[in-house]
Each structure stands twice: as C-alpha cells, then as structure tokens.
C-alpha cells in the first residue's frame, strides 16, 4: 500500500536532491521473536565456523533452545502486551502483521520447533560409533554413503551440527510466513524456510539414498511450486498494482479511493486476479499438503530423517495454514464466492484421498504422511468456514495437531532394529507386549489422530467441524466424518498390530532415549490429554487470537 509505495517508490523522488534518505520505520520490539531466531541462526553459523568440533554440539543445542525459549518469551510478552488483540497492527512498514493469529501461530511454531530440536539433539538411539555418540544425521553429509571419506568422518566423530542453524533459519522463515502482510514477504519467507528444509531432508545418517531422494523430490517440486506461486504474485500484482495485502484487498473489494488509469485497466481484468489468486493458493496448498498437490508428502516424510519429518510435518503445516488463512481472510475475502467452491472441492478430495490411500500403507512414516494429508483436509474445512470461529478453530487444531505429530514421529525414532528405525509396519507387531508403555503412548497419539474424545484430536476436529457447520458447510462435515471413519480404520490397524499380535522373534526393540526425546514425547502426551480434557483455556486463547489486523 502506501507505505510500501513510499519505500519503493523512489522513481518519483529520484529527481529531487537527496538530502536525507528516510530510514524505514521498523518496530524491532514487535518483531523480536523473529529477530531473535534469525540472530541465533546467524550466531549458530558463526559457531559452526569458530567453535571447536567437540563442543559444537553442546553449544548449538544450547543456543537453539535458548533462542527458541527467548523467542517464545517474546511472543508471550507481545501477546500479554495486547498485540494479539487491541494493539494488533501492521508493522515493518506494512510488511509484517503483528496480530492475534500471527502471534498464536508463532508461539505454536516456536514450541513445536523447540520440541523438535530436542529430538534433533537425541544421541542415544543409535549405538555409539567408535566411542562417539551419534544422532540421526550423517557424520558428513557431503561424503558419499559407504565411501572411505564417510568412514573417516564417522571415525573422527564428525556430526552434522549444521542442522541446528538450518532449523533455526527454517523457523525464522516459518515465523514470518503466517505474519507476512505482502506478497513479497510471503514469497521470501516461503523460500527462507523451504531451503533449509530441503537440506535437512538430505542428511540422514541411515538410508541416505532415500534421504537424498526425498531431498531432491522435495526440492524440485518445492521449487516448481514456488515458481507457480511467484507467477501468481506477478499476476495479482499486475491486477492490483501492489503486493500489499491491504491494498489488494481494497482493489478486489472495489473500495480503493484513487484509481489511476493503469489500475483501472487492470482492475477490469478479473482473469488476472482469479488466475493469480489460484496460483498463489496452489503454492500454499502445496506446502499444506492438500490433494492434488500432496504427492511429495509421503516420499519426503518417509525419506527424511525422522526428527526432521516431525518438525516439518508440524511446523510447516502450521506456518502454511497461517499464510493460507491470512491470504483468504485478509486479501481475498472479496473473492469468497469464487474460492469457496474451489476450496470445498480441494477439502473434500483431500480428506477422502488422504484417508483412503492411507488404508493400504505399510510404512509407519508413510502412513503418518497420508494421515497428515487427511488432517490437512479437516483443517481446510475450518478454513472454509470464513468466520472468526473458523479462524480460531483452525488455530486450535494446528496447536493440537502439531504436538501429536511431533510426539508420534518421536516415538517412531525409538523403535529400531539393526538397520536403524524399523518403520515397516510388520515389524511393529506385538510391540505392545514387549514395550507396553511405548506402545501405549503411540496408541494415545493414534487415537488423537483418529479424533477419539478426550484427546486433543477430538477437540480440534469438533472445533473445526462446528465452525464449518456454522459457516454453512454442513456437507463438508458429513464428508469429514466419513473420512474420519475411514481414517480410523488404519489408526486402529496399527493399534491392533501393536497390541493384539504376537511379537516376532526378530522384531525391533525399543531403545530407551535420553531425556530429550522423552521430553518431546511427554510434552506431546501432555498436550494431547490437556487439550482433550480441558481445552477451554486454549480455545479462549485461539478465540482471542482470531482477528486479523488489516
């Protein structure tokens, strides 16, 4: 809008003598969460460069946790300061919104990231190599698996501590993504969190071939989709003459005050807006994992190192839905009658396809991937509600979902045999007999995924469906319950396998993890139960955070 035009509109003022370049007005305090994380990420890069290898791990873990903790503190402070409600506004010269949804989602992302960092830092699962504790990541990602150089790296006790700065960068991008208030920021944030994730996918210690394949697929398809997104940005920009959300919204609504001739020309061309909007939508739906843009999900979830998968599944989804909400509620509410039917279709297909395809999966991680697709469909039902209840229900669902997901993937890291994680479902047979506690915890997560009452999954599903029904999308609710029923089948199948099958003699064992992973799982369980039994406080939070600043 005007502020952005003022920053970039040098064209008009260049002729005047330059006496002073007005510095842009940045509310640093209000951007503190992001800034802290970005700062920590840069610091972490420096740590990689200067801190001796032996102590890097500890420094990195400390730095990451400390950064995320202080970022979370900043979020809480901002929220307490009323920035989520009364003082919500657009900061950073129109680039970033500081409002309820942004702060809520940032909080969720930071917490999810913190828990994920715990799982990143886990070093007790794999047997020690040459006396060095190892984590889930390759000793030296650049070396070819099985080569001499890799052996040497393992022997030297190298570890890829770069994952911590990468993760921090990704978190930084994710923090901006749902808060982005213009299309450019949106695009940049997308790339900032995507690129580190591509890399993180590629650095698994075990089964690196699959890890690299996942990275390549993720990268190529991600780049492909961001090209679409960018083209969409270009078209919308062409339509509205601006990339600022508010300005675009005004143009779409026709409430814009001053119309210059160029704008008048493009405004008349709705195709620009519709095609551009659809392309941007596609870019976001890709990140969300909605059908038919979901096909990367199973492969990437399966190939990536499991802690990364958990992080990606939880945090990316939160960030992407945040951006989607803002796009649809702030930029395109005027186009509601155009995008709602389309999104209906996407939601229905996503719910059903995710649930149906998951039925025949045989790999735990792929199963969870398809389940995440189905869940994306459920959340889309809430998005479609186009009401404040819709927003708050989506926020709540994301909170509930992200912790269950991280917890579930954390449990997956524990079940191991000689080849590393035993993700094939047949190996999980009888786990409940052998390790009742682990199996019980996983069962809790599965039940939450299935949306059984008294778990967070149910509260979330109920909130979303209720919002959808109140928003006039009753049919979506019906499709939702049908696909929930289908989905229940495969969650139950895993439980059957764990508890009712006899354990196999050569089955995997459950490794006792360090307190780090235990914390991650415990947090997951705690959130699952608390949000299932007494969700009111969090619903209140989400409810208060459901208004977008414009």
């Amino acid at each position, binding site marked *: 809008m005007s502020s*952005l*035009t003022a920053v*970039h*509109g*040098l*064209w008009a003022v260049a002729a005047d003598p330059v006496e002073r370049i007005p510095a842009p007005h940045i509310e640093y305090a209000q951007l503190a969460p992001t800034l802290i994380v970005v700062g920590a990420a840069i610091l972490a890069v420096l740590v990689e460069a200067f801190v001796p290898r032996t102590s890097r791990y500890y420094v990195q873990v400390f730095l990451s946790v400390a950064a995320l903790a202080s970022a979370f503190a900043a979020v809480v402070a901002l929220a307490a300061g009323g920035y989520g409600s009364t003082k919500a506004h657009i900061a950073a010269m129109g680039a970033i919104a500081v409002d309820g949804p942004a702060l809520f989602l940032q909080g969720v992302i930071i917490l999810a990231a913190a828990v994920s960092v715990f799982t990143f830092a886990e070093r007790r699962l794999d047997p020690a190599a040459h006396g060095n504790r190892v984590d889930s990541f390759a000793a030296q*990602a*650049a070396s*070819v*698996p099985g080569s001499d150089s890799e052996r040497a790296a393992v022997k030297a006790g190298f570890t890829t501590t770069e994952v911590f700065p990468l993760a921090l960068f990704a978190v930084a991008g994710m923090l901006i993504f749902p808060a982005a208030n213009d*299309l*450019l920021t949106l*695009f*940049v944030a997308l*790339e900032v969190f995507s*690129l580190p994730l*591509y*890399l993180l996918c*590629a650095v698994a210690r075990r089964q*690196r*071939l*699959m890890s*690299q*394949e*996942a*990275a*390549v*697929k993720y*990268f*190529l398809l991600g*780049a*492909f989709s961001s*090209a*679409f997104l*960018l*083209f969409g*940005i*270009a*078209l919308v*920009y*062409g339509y509205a*003459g*601006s*990339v600022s959300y508010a300005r675009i919204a005004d143009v779409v609504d026709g409430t814009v005050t001053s119309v*210059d001739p*160029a*704008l008048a*020309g*493009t405004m008349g061309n709705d195709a620009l807006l519709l095609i551009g909007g659809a392309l941007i939508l596609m870019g976001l739906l890709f990140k969300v994992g909605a059908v038919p843009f979901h096909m990367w999900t*199973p*492969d990437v979830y*399966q*190939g990536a190192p499991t802690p990364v998968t958990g992080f990606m599944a939880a945090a990316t989804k939160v960030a992407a839905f945040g951006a989607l909400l803002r796009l649809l509620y702030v930029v395109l509410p005027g186009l509601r009658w155009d995008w709602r039917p389309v999104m209906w279709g996407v939601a229905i297909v996503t719910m059903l396809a995710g649930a149906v395809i998951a039925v025949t999966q045989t790999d735990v991680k*792929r199963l969870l991937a398809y389940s995440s697709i189905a869940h994306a469909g459920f959340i889309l039902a809430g998005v479609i509600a186009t009401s404040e209840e819709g927003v708050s229900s989506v926020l709540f669902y994301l909170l509930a979902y992200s912790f269950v997901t991280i917890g579930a993937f954390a449990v997956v890291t524990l079940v191991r045999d000689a080849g590393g994680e035993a993700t094939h479902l047949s190996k999980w047979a009888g786990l409940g007999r052998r390790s009742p506690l682990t199996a019980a915890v996983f069962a809790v997560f599965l039940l939450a995924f299935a949306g059984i009452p008294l778990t967070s999954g149910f509260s979330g599903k109920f909130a979303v469906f209720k919002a959808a029904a109140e928003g006039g999308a009753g049919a979506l609710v019906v499709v939702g319950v049908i696909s929930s029923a289908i989905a229940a089948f495969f969650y139950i199948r895993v439980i059957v396998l764990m508890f009712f099958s006899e354990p196999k003699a050569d089955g995997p064992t459950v490794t006792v993890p360090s307190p780090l992973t235990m914390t991650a799982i415990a947090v997951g369980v705690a959130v699952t139960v608390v949000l299932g039994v007494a969700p009111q406080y969090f619903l209140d939070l989400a409810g208060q955070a459901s208004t977008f600043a414009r």
Partner: protein
Amino acid sequence: MNPVNYLYLAALLFTIGASGVLIRRNAIVLFMCVELMLNACNLALVAFSRMHGNLDGQIIAFFTMVVAAAEVVVGLAIIVSLFRTRHSASVDDASLMKL
C-alpha cells in the same frame, strides 16, 4: 509495443519452463527449467511494474534473483550429492520410495 505482449511472452516462457520440468529427466535440466519459470515471472513482474508505473514489481524481481541464487546453491548441493551417490542425475532413477 503493447505491454501485454510482454505478458504473453512471460506466460509462454513460464509454460515452456513448466513443460520442461514435466518432460526432461536430468535433474540439472529440470532445475534450469524451474529457473526459466522464475525468470518468466520476473518478466511479468517487470512488465506490470512498468504498466502500473511503480517500482514494486522490479524490486520483487531483484528479490527473485536472490532467491533463485539461493535455490541454486541449495539445489545444486543436493543434486550433486545425489549424483555422487548414484552416479546418475536422472530424477527417474531416484524412485525408491513410492506407493
């Protein structure tokens, strides 16, 4: 020239790039096609920028270039490591995970 023609060109380039992604096998070529798509976007942005008489589009184009560069860094790293492991840059070879 009618600025709309630039847009047609951009769309054409974008489609060529997209088709390339769909058709070609070599990961590097694929990647180059993606770059082509990004540059098509740039063209469109610049054209619109000119049409609207503000600089936003052009600035975005700069950002796009930076992002593309970053993508190259990350992408090539991944593709090269894949190539070194598999001795092949064909994306079709990397299909361990399916169904």
